[in-house]
Every structure is written in structure tokens, then in C-alpha cells.
């Protein structure tokens, strides 16, 4: 038996990991996700929630389908929260493939759950602009030299929300959902620090350790990976129980998407810990001459 484990085919490990993730999805397993008071999801929630209704919020979707598993739930959560508070939402993206997600946030989440909100008056999209940090810098100085039209090619001066906006300094909050560069780091360096605009962000697990040093100044809150997104969803539903309604939970962009993904996460982590313990047991057993 030990010999078999010593030479375990890596494909068996892959298969077990696949089952550890697939079975909780198929059986819709979920586990309690406690969110401690004062943790990051609360900081992020408070930053958005404490703004007066109708505040201006710039939301940048800086990710692509490669990281949608981690970031899309929190992106849609931010959109719901801002829509709930009737904040004016200015969408944009520094990643070209972020634009379809912006369209989904506007057409599916806002369009279906908040049909009273009107494009151009309550929300709009600048679309994608290449240039990474140069775009952020321009946004802070003079938005209209960079964005002549919105993503639908309408003159910004003809859109009520943007007609009187000169730069991103007019925003009350910036929300960034980031999968890498350009992303939260650039928003910290070129917007939050020099212009003093409050910034909250959601990021992938890979990025999180690099962004923690920016908390709490200038980064007011951070949702690290799917765990952060699940915590935020939990806080959001506790504050606005209507977001936990069956039709919203079952919609294409469920208000519990991140919470549902924590079930497979839990089982996969258990499996990994078991493998680590087993590997160490065999190592020390062999070292003691038990082989």
C-alpha cells in the first residue's frame, strides 16, 4: 500500500481533485462562511454604503474571461450594491475583454433587476481605452481629451451624466476589479494617491499579497479572491435581504455566485491538506527506516 502511495500516478491526484471540485457543484454543497466584524468585506461594503444616495462612482472592470471565476461575482456584487444605492455608475475598463462584462452588468444585472435605472442618467460606460496607466492619469487630469464618446459612440457632452464632468476628481469613489496590470496597483499609484480619491478593490488571489500593503491608505478596502467576494455577498444580502430572493439567486449572475463557489473550495482544500499530511507521514516513516 505504502509503495503504491510512494509512486502515486499524478493523474490519480488530478482525478481526485476533479471529483473534489465537481461533486460539491453537482450536489450544491455549501458551508457556513462567517464574516468577522471589521474584516475587509465590511470595509468595502461601508465605503459604498456610507456614500449619500446618488453619489458618483467610477467602476473599472480590469479583468478578462481568464479570471472571471474569481472576479465576476464581486463585479456583479459591486454593480448591484451601487444600483441599490442609486449611485451614478461610470463603467470603464483597461482590459479589452472586460467590456463584455461591463455590457452584461448594464444589460443583465441593471437591466433586469433595476429596470427603472436609465442609461446616461443613472449609469453609462466609457468602454475600453488602451494605454493602461496613461489612461488613469488622463482620467484624473481631463477625461474628455481621452474619452470623446461613450462605448456606444455617443458624444459625452450629450450624455447627462458626463456633460458636466471634467475629470475623475469629480468621483466620490473608485471601484476597481483587477486581474493584474493594469489594475489596482495602477489605480493606487495614478488616481488614489495623487488625487486623494477613495478607492476600494477586488482582486485575484495571486495579486492580493501585493496589494495588502496599500491598506488602509490609500486603499480603503480589498476583496481578496473568491473568499473576499463570498464575504461581500454575505454582508450585502444581510443588509439588503431582497438580493437573496430566489429569482436573483437563480439568475445568470447569481447574487450568491461566490458563496456557491466556496463549497468546492472547502472540499478541495480538505483534499489538499490530506495529501500534504499523507506525503509528510510517508516521508518521515521512510526516514525512520520504516520502508
Amino acid at each position, binding site marked *: 500500500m505504502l509503495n503504491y502511495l510512494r509512486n502515486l500516478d499524478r493523474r490519480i491526484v488530478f482525478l481526485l481533485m476533479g471529483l473534489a471540485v465537481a461533486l460539491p457543484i453537482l450536489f450544491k454543497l455549501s458551508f457556513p462562511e462567517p464574516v468577522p466584524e471589521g474584516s475587509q468585506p465590511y470595509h468595502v461594503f461601508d465605503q459604498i454604503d456610507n456614500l449619500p444616495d446618488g453619489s458618483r462612482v467610477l467602476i473599472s472592470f480590469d479583468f478578462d474571461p481568464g479570471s472571471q*471565476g474569481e472576479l465576476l461575482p464581486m463585479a456583479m456584487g459591486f454593480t448591484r450594491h451601487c444600483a441599490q444605492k442609486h449611485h451614478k455608475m461610470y463603467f470603464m475598463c483597461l482590459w479589452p475583454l472586460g467590456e463584455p462584462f461591463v455590457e452584461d452588468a448594464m444589460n443583465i444585472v441593471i437591466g433586469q433587476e433595476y429596470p427603472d435605472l436609465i442609461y446616461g442618467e443613472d449609469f453609462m460606460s466609457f468602454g475600453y481605452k488602451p494605454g493602461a496607466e496613461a489612461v488613469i492619469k488622463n482620467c484624473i487630469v481631463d477625461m474628455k481629451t481621452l474619452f470623446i464618446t461613450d462605448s456606444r459612440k455617443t*458624444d459625452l457632452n450629450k450624455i447627462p451624466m458626463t456633460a458636466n464632468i471634467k475629470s475623475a476628481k469629480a468621483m466620490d469613489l473608485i471601484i476597481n476589479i483587477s486581474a493584474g496590470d493594469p489594475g489596482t496597483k495602477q489605480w493606487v499609484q495614478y488616481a488614489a494617491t495623487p488625487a486623494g480619491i477613495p478607492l476600494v478593490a477586488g482582486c485575484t488571489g495571486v495579486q492580493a499579497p501585493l496589494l495588502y500593503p496599500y491598506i488602509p491608505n490609500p486603499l480603503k478596502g480589498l476583496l481578496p479572491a473568491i473568499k473576499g467576494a463570498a464575504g461581500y455577498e454575505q454582508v450585502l444580502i444581510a443588509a439588503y435581504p431582497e438580493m437573496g430572493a430566489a429569482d436573483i439567486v437563480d439568475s445568470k449572475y447569481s447574487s450568491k455566485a461566490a458563496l456557491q463557489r466556496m463549497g468546492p473550495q472547502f472540499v478541495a482544500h480538505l483534499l489538499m491538506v490530506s495529501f500534504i499530511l499523507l506525503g509528510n507521514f510517508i516521508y518521515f516513516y521512510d526516514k525512520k527506516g520504516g520502508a
Partner: protein
Amino acid sequence: MSDAPMTTNAKTGWMIMIAVVVLGMILAWFTLDAGKVWVTSETVTFSQVGVDDQATWSEGAIAGAPQVSWVVATEVKPDTVGATLSTNRTIGVWLAAILTLFIMSFLAGDNPFYKTAESIVIGVSAAYWMVLSFWTGIVDKLLVNIIPDTTRAWAVPGLPESAQFNWIYLIPLVLSCMLIWRLSPKGGWIARWPLAFVIGTTAGFRLLSHLESDFLLQIKSTITSLYVVGADGFQFWPSVSAVVILLSVLCCLVYFFFSMEHKGVVGKTARVGIYVLMVTFGAAFGLTVMGRITLLTERFDFLFDDWLHLL
């Protein structure tokens, strides 16, 4: 793919796996309606109101006014009234599912299916970036400033009438042409000038922001009170946190201090610095693993829900 020929056993294994997957797909199509997407369609019409600079578009058909119409398709459940099967979207879901399986097949070993999917990703990405760069770089940034009237008529109808020729954009145009000179067999040195410009401006552009947010602000965040007092008086855990942060920073700095031999107190402090770094790397690795599991979860979600309709 490995150049070594496949053994007979491996070939048989692959053939059985392919047969099982294809049979499974056929079965799923007939029993689970796998990958089928239903939509309802609605025609949207907008009419022009006003002329020239005052022209706006209003939803609805106005007799005699210029109009534009398009069809909006919304994904719905199959039992919805008026739902029709969308062939395009169904093909899309099937392609995505098959390509996902092709990529996942790499776990069983390198194979032609994986190679096919990999080549498709590379080809599509290259083409996508070319088209995107043309529209967002050349059209949206350069042409709207050099030939605004032509660009408005051809590609950007929302470009304001006030947009005029801006001579300053001739500079990036010239620099771009100089950059492309690198492809020429002679005069490659011409490309060095715009390259030097790009490097110089980028360095200058980034220097200040890095100094501000990654250096000065980090020092400021580290120099905080170790005795934290809140509205309710002394706060124990925030104080512990402040002490741990300060000690960790100092120990890590000592570890990277190579002008002194790491012996005695310095050596011990540096050792603690290594432990702090290890904890940081462990946390980073743990978060990375969590991210990777989420990617797998998202793909399984797609396969089980959007493709096989099992959820």
C-alpha cells in the same frame, strides 16, 4: 507533443476515451438538450429627431424620420412563451465545451486535441489584438484627431462636430512610422529614436508615482502608534498588529542588509526576517491555489450548467 511514438496501449486508451466522450456527447444532446440555448427576440427601432448638431435618437418609429432597427435576443428558459432555439449560441456553447475538454485532456498527457485548442487560442488572440489595436489605437486616438470629418463619416458617428485637426498628433504619427522602420533591412537605427522617447517618458512618468505610493506612503504607513487607543480606550489586538508589522519590516530589512555579516544579533534578526518572508510566500501560494481551484470550479460550472443543464 512528444516526438516518441505512442505505445499500442496508450493508443487503445486514447481511442476508448474518445469513443466514451463522443458517445456521452451524443447521449447528452438527446437526453439533456446539452448546450441548447433558447432566446426570445425583440426588434428595437430608433428614429432621428432634429437635424445636424441638434440631432438626437429617440426610441420608437416616427413616420418620415430616418430610422435604425436591430433585433435584441435575450436568453430565456426553454418553456418561456415565444422561445426559439438559437443556433449560433448553441454552436458557441458546444465549441466552448469541446475546447474546454480539449485543454483539460492535457492532464492525461500531451495530445493532438490539446495542441489544436492551444493553436486556436494563439491564432484567435493574435487576430483579436490586431483588430482591437487598429480600432482603439489608430482610429480612436490618431485618426479622430488628424482627419476628424472623414473618421466621423466612416467610423465614429458620435464624434463631436467641434472636433478639429490637431497637429500635435502628427508627432506620434511620425514616431510610429520611425518605429516601424525597424523592419526595414537598412536604417534600423531610426527606430531607436522613438524607442528612446518611449523609455524616457515611461521612466519619468512612473518614477514620481512609485516614489509617492510605493516608497513614501509605505514608510508613513509603517510609522504608526504602537499603543492604539480607540473610542473605547486601549485596543489590544490593533496594538499587537502594529508591533508585529513594525518588527516584521525591521527584520526583513535586516535580512536584505548585506554590508554586515549575518552573525550574532544581526544573524538572529535576519533569521526572523526569513521566517516572515516564508510566511508571506506561504500566504501568496495559498491564495494562488485558491484562485486556481476557483478557475476549475468556474469551468465545471459552465460544463454542468450551461452545457449539460445538470444544475
